[in-house]
């Protein structure tokens, strides 16, 4: 680690051979940051080795999670995907309409205010969404869809949709705004209306950025713990195609069992395995999202 780091320094920073002490301090800080990130992933992997050893790939495919006997993460993985997918489906039309209206129809000061509101919405703590979800959303979902019970994958999806709305909206709006105004002027010069311009010119141009925004939203949704934990029903069962049943996501499983597992080695290692899986999923999605965002920025 140290050696390669030094290598990078000499190759990337050859312009500045004579660093002052301050430079070394900053390099040290950078090193701490690097260690934090790398350390996190390494730790999750190392701590979960026992479970990979005992279960192998069956850890991802097993349907049963019985502490002390067998650990299968499929219900949690499926749950995570279903809930996240639902959240995206629900949030996409709303967030896109909002982003389109904000970027194409609002004046700059209003736009800035809208962004501020989104930031407020993004800042509301997860525990508060959880409280609201438990008290209102579950009962609402139960009555509207006439279900036996309101703690379902669908409820969690709805709650997550609200939670990632600001992220998706703000980032899509950025993508729409990043389309240069020359295109807009040219299109309007050709006689296209504002809506046609937005639909045929601006939207296609900013598509990579919007995809990036959605992917980053997905990353957010996948990792949410507290709010989902309180409304999802926590049933470790592969849900099939019915979204109106209880389920479980990886973070909610971690949140519920982490404290209890501290004592026992196998159980803890299984949870770390889940954590590592989640980390891989989120890291992959985030890197893709950033790639799209970067691509649209050029």
């Amino acid at each position, binding site marked *: 680690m140290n050696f390669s780091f030094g290598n990078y320094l000499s190759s990337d920073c050859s*312009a500045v051979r004579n660093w002052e002490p*301050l430079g070394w301090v900053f*390099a040290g800080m950078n090193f701490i940051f690097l260690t934090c990130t790398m350390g996190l992933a390494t*730790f999750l992997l190392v701590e979960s080795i026992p479970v990979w050893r005992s279960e192998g790939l069956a850890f991802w495919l097993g349907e049963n999670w019985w502490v002390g006997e067998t650990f299968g993460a499929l219900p949690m993985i499926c749950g995570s995907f279903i809930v996240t997918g639902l959240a995206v489906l629900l949030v996409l039309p709303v967030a896109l309409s909002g982003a389109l209206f904000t970027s194409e129809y609002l004046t700059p000061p209003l736009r800035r205010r809208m962004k501020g509101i989104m930031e407020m919405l993004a*800042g509301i*703590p997860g525990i508060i969404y959880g409280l609201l979800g438990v008290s209102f959303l579950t009962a609402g979902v139960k009555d509207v869809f006439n279900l036996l019970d309101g703690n379902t994958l669908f409820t969690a999806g709805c709650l997550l949709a609200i939670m990632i709305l600001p992220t998706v909206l703000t980032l899509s709006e950025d993508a729409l705004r990043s389309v240069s105004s020359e295109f807009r002027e040219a299109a309007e010069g050709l006689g296209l209306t504002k809506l046609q311009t937005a639909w045929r010119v601006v939207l296609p141009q900013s598509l990579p950025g919007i995809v990036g925004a959605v992917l980053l939203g997905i990353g957010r949704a996948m990792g949410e713990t*507290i709010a989902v934990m309180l409304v999802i029903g926590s049933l470790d069962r592969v849900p099939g195609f019915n979204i109106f049943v209880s389920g479980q996501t990886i973070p909610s499983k971690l949140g519920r069992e982490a404290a209890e597992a501290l004592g026992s080695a196998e159980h803890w290692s299984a949870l770390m395995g889940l954590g590592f899986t989640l980390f891989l999923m989120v890291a992959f999605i985030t890197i893709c999202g950033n790639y799209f965002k970067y691509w649209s920025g050029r």
Partner: protein
Amino acid sequence: MSAIAFEKVVRVIIGSITFIIIGLLVAIFSIMFLKGFPAFHGDFLFAESKDFGRAGGVFYQLVGTLILMTTAVLLSLPVALGSVLFQTEYMAPGKFKTLLAQLTYVLNATPTILFGLVGYLLFGVYLDTGVSWVTGSMILAVMILPTLQVSLREAVEALPQKYREAGMALGLTRSSQIRRVILPQCFYGVVTGVLLGLARAAGETAAIMFTATTFSGIQFPQSFSDPVPTLQTHILILAQEAAHPESIAQAWGSGLVLLGLVFILTLMAWVFRTRVVMESDL
């Protein structure tokens, strides 16, 4: 003609969707206010929690949240500032620099519960700090590191190139350029980053619920190895374990306090951010 009508209809539809989104924020605030306000008797903010949360206030919980997030930011700020300045001022563009920027985003997206799990194992068990203030603030410090980095980087990169050129022309060394030119110019950016970091730390529950907090017995922590009571876990425990309606009312009240705290921090960050925008426009 119908095209114009269609245009109008679409405009109204997406406009009203936008208003509904704004309405969402208003709705959340009013629900929290309606549910939480009844708990605000005389000195809710300044009294100690009593009788398993049924009576009293949330003073020490509020203090706990404040000290936990402040320590986290104090720990995180030097690292964030150092790494950002190193990346922007010392490193030449290259693959490694791009990788570092990517890592910031990955760290930012990492589910907070993972910080809790790994942090507890690393600090709490291997370094033997247990469930304590140190453990919690270190975990939160790592968690808000990317938030701070993103804001700081934005601020540093928004500085006009001519400032740096002017500094160089005056023969300033790199470190004195950072001290005399860059840091003072990014002051508002640093403040914004700190405020956003504080807000993120204040809103976090999953990472600290089994690593740093306690329900009762602590007022002000007397050492770094004491756990602290916080608003977030107070809400969680009251909402989960309390058998009396009074306790639930207290949970809503604590929720309102927490929401207010985060709201104020975000609002301040927003105000400072606009200062940054105005300055870089000059």
